[in-house]
């Protein structure tokens, strides 16, 4: 599955996670697996709220870091894809009830 720029995502609610040193550690209790995000990954993770699209997240990155929107969007999509593959993200339910990818 390819993550599209217009997709909306939410954190998998079955995960335990904490920020430490601007990094994020995520535990999947069911699989006993630990995941780590660096500072920019943590920034994106924090801002995934079930409402923001990848484009919105990239725009936030541009505000926070010295990066172009094009690069930020490409990196954001790549990260979202990785997080989705690892089952750390789920498609967000839209107000109409369907998943918005």
């Amino acid at each position, binding site marked *: 599955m390819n993550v599209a720029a217009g997709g909306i995502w939410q954190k998998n609610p*079955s995960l*335990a*996670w*904490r920020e*430490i*040193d601007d*990094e994020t*550690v995520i535990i999947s*209790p069911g699989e*006993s697996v630990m995941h780590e995000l660096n500072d920019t990954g943590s920034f994106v993770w924090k801002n995934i709220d079930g409402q923001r699209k990848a484009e919105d997240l990239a725009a936030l990155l541009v505000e926070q870091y010295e990066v172009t929107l094009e690069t930020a969007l490409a990196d954001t999509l790549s990260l979202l894809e990785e997080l989705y593959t690892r089952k750390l993200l789920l498609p967000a339910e839209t107000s109409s009830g369907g998943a918005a990818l």
Partner: protein
Amino acid sequence: MRKALRPRTGAGTVVCKRFRLKLAHAILGSAIGTHVDLLIGSLPLRISSEDSSLLSAAAKRYRGFSDSQEKRFSIQVDRAEAGFSGQHEFVCDFEGARVVANATGAHFSGVRHEYALDSLLRMFLSWALLGQQGFLLHAATVVRNGKAYVFVGRSGAGKSTIASLSPRGTVLTDEISLLKRVDREWRAFGTPFWGEFRADGANTSAPVAGIFRLVQASDNLVVPLRPSELLRTMLPCVLFFSSQLGDNDRLLQILVAATEQVAGYNLQFQKNRSFWEVMPS
């Protein structure tokens, strides 16, 4: 014809024998007949079983951790397997044996030998310590000058080597350490869970001087770790068996607090006592 009553001294001997019998019965009852009382990481436990051989093994295995407090957490141990029923806050299986636990007590079933009991006790403690700001860690702990040095690493990392190289310190354990926040201070406790070094641990505790990730090398060097690096080091070595989200969230919270409040280090060490020369005091 009945014999005359014996003098009082003789009667006294009879009474004394009766007392001896009662005393002997009492010892039998408390040691192997009904339960074994323990204190591990300041957590008072009562292991009860109708299986005298299991209780005898437990009394011997955990003899350094016996205790006589009144109020304690009850653990019922049975050799027979038990069906799963009711609501439990913690459930975990191990090679046919099972631990189920909640806030009031625990039941270990299918416990065929003392090693299964030992495994279930570790599993149970990993869960029970959550409520006490504590956790179990694959680590050796050595007390030196009143402070606990915690050496973390998986099997083969050098925990037993460190323990054997530390004759002047009190080795609390060479395999599984118990860390717990007590009165705003992180303390390391001895456990009855040991590796190659010795068969029993010291039931005492000391404030944690630091947590050291073991790296065998040709020289001795200590490098501080950031909290995130310490967390990454510790997480794979934490004993934890619950798959419940709430338990995992609580564990992560405790570990993050520990890594932010306890100094962490990378320790490159030679296989001799010289590594103590580079240790922070």
